[in-house]
């Protein structure tokens, strides 16, 4: 594994290796000194050309806990805001000796372009590309699901996961569908017909227009963020109607069964796709997703950047 661009590039064994490595590394997060020397001397660039707080901070924390040097590069006030192309930015980062670039970009496929064009030799990690994918989010989501509902080991065979809301524009949904399928979970997409992608029949998932009818029996209800700009494009009549049919509220939270959990990639629109009662309920693991995000991102950086010997050593320790 040279880059992390799309979940579709991962084998099941590779995905499980990331989750298992994250499991090991999560101990660091619980230790009094939250630091490993593994990536000392490595330079990691957080190239966030689209606004993001939690993903950038999460990657930064992950890199620092592995002792890497982190450079944050945002669009605002940088050469990019002056019209510099992705190519020239990449050439600059290459010239500075970046070992890895973590890219957040509004354009689908931007991370793949950065990795494929030979502009730079370091590893590229896709931290969200347009409406395409957000692989580290899916990995941290599966990590969280596994921890709660599969004893923290192995795959997710048989677990039922509902992904609810704006599937059409969601990179979180795309990566989660790929990874959950890979790990054996059963996915149901829940959305109004306007917010399901054309050709969703080929995604290997169930889909439903009726949230209430799908709630019972679900192990996981994963809510998606609804972007404000969708309001003006006729995807649904208004916020009230959307929330009524597809929002997770107290009644729907009560209709959830067994040990089922509530997830959300954040940032939440409280009152739109999820109410405060649901977000703060006992079933909610939303805050824990953030914690797990650091461990999973440490695992990604570790596996991409640490030498093969160090990876083998960690495997021995955990065996």
């Amino acid at each position, binding site marked *: 594994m040279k880059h992390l661009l799309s979940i579709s590039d991962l084998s099941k064994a590779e995905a499980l290796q990331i989750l298992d490595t994250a499991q090991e590394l999560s101990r660091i997060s619980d230790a009094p000194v939250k630091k490993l020397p593994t990536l000392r001397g490595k330079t990691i660039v957080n190239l966030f050309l689209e606004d993001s707080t939690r993903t950038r901070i999460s990657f930064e924390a992950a890199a620092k806990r592995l002792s890497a040097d982190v450079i944050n590069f945002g669009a605002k006030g940088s050469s990019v805001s002056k019209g510099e192309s992705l190519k020239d930015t990449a050439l600059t980062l290459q010239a500075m000796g970046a070992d890895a670039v973590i890219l957040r970009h509004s354009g*689908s496929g931007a991370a793949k372009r950065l990795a494929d064009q030979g502009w730079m030799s370091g590893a590229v990690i896709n931290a969200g590309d347009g409406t395409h994918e957000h692989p580290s989010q899916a990995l941290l989501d599966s990590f969280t699901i596994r921890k709660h509902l599969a004893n923290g080991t192995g795959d997710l065979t048989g677990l039922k996961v509902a992904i609810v809301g704006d599937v059409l524009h969601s990179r979180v949904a795309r990566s989660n569908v790929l990874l959950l399928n890979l790990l054996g979970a059963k996915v149901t997409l829940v959305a109004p017909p306007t917010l399901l992608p054309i050709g969703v029949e080929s995604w290997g998932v169930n889909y439903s227009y009726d949230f209430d009818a799908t709630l019972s029996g679900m192990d996981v209800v994963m809510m998606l963020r609804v972007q404000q700009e969708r309001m003006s494009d006729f995807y649904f009549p208004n916020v009230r109607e959307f929330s009524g049919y597809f929002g997770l509220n107290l009644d729907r939270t009560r209709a959830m069964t067994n040990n089922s959990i509530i997830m959300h990639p954040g940032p939440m629109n409280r009152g739109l796709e999820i109410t405060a009662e649901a977000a703060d309920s006992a079933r909610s693991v939303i805050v824990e997703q953030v914690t797990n995000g650091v461990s999973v991102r440490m695992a990604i950086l570790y596996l991409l950047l640490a030498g093969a010997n160090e990876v083998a050593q960690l495997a021995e320790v955990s065996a």
Partner: protein
Amino acid sequence: MSSIIIKGGSLFGEKVADLAVSNGKIVEPSSVGSDAVVIDAANCIVLPGLVDLHTHLREPGRENAETVLSGSRAGVKGGFTALSAMANTLPVADNAGVVEQVWRLGQATGLCDVFPIGAVTEGLEGKNLAEIGAMADSEAKVRVFSDDGNCVSDSLVMRRALEYVKKFNGVIAQHAQDPRLTVGAQMNEGEVSSQLGLKGWPTIAEEAIIARDILLADHVGSRLHICHLTSAGGVELVRWAKARGIAVTAEVTPHHLLLTDELARSYDPIYKVNPPLRRASDVQALREGLADGTIDIIATDHAPHPSESKECEWQEASFGMLGLESALAIANMVLVETGLLTWRGIAEKLSINPAAIAGYGDHGSDLSVGKAANITIIDPKREWRVDRDLMQSRSKNTPYHGMQMRGVARDVIYRGSVVLRNGEVHNG
């Protein structure tokens, strides 16, 4: 201008015969003297010079991408003796001044005829009619009008344009794309676009405009030409219109006959083009539509762009790909070698029919004595590899870089002068 004798070529791929040229015309072989230049065309196909009805030459305004000269060289290299320069230049070719400028630039290069296409509306904005009459009466004698790049989406404007050009038997070439259904569109809408998270351009956005315009053309009794048809549904609509006797013609590009939307999985915008690459089933329907006569012509939609417009993210990149230098080889491989068309059929699709649609009287001839000597000699077996660094075009945005092709224009005679000899462009 010396005489030329073309020996032993197969005219239209049907009959081996000598062809002679003198003073810009085709003459009896017995009438030329022993001092005539001899071109050995054994094992070659001899066709009337190819005619492209859809070329972006970028001049004036975007000479960093292409000029009339560099585009003409690319055209000649590809076997063309006539190009049709689309109106989306800077300034737009929406008045007599700009079309005459392009016309004169073409004449000055002397490599092939460059016929300007006039804009339908001022500034390609779709609101007010451009000075269509003045362009028709200008030195350039424009007969084809198009807002290509933009669709004439307003039904009333389209109706009036169709009616207005009847005055001089003009034709409106429509870029069929409902703008509201394609806001921000990046590629064909389907399974691939959904997986890639790229905004879709549904075929319905093309078909809805085609259906409307067919009915408008029928209603006002005018001529409609559909640019770059891409979908199986569009082919069905044109087939229906022709069966009803409506005066509609249609074109398809070489890239829509060969490439599919699967290529977008690379996120390499070399494959980003408008209208977008479609599914394999559409490609098959387009080939069949050509073979059964529903689609009248192949046109390149040659769209040069500088490197920086393609060396970037998919969304940032410009739409369009080069076409002039590869069109003939693709036609050979996907139509002749598959048995869908004969060389006579290729002559119709790439020369006779486009010349007839646009009224280019000196082009698309039957190669009989007395006709203007616009002739292309094709070596159908010649293998070559596309190299973007060896193009005549000023730009390099060919999607075929590295691809093995078969069939090439070896020699081209334009108005009696040899402008391509053994693959080398002469003068200019």
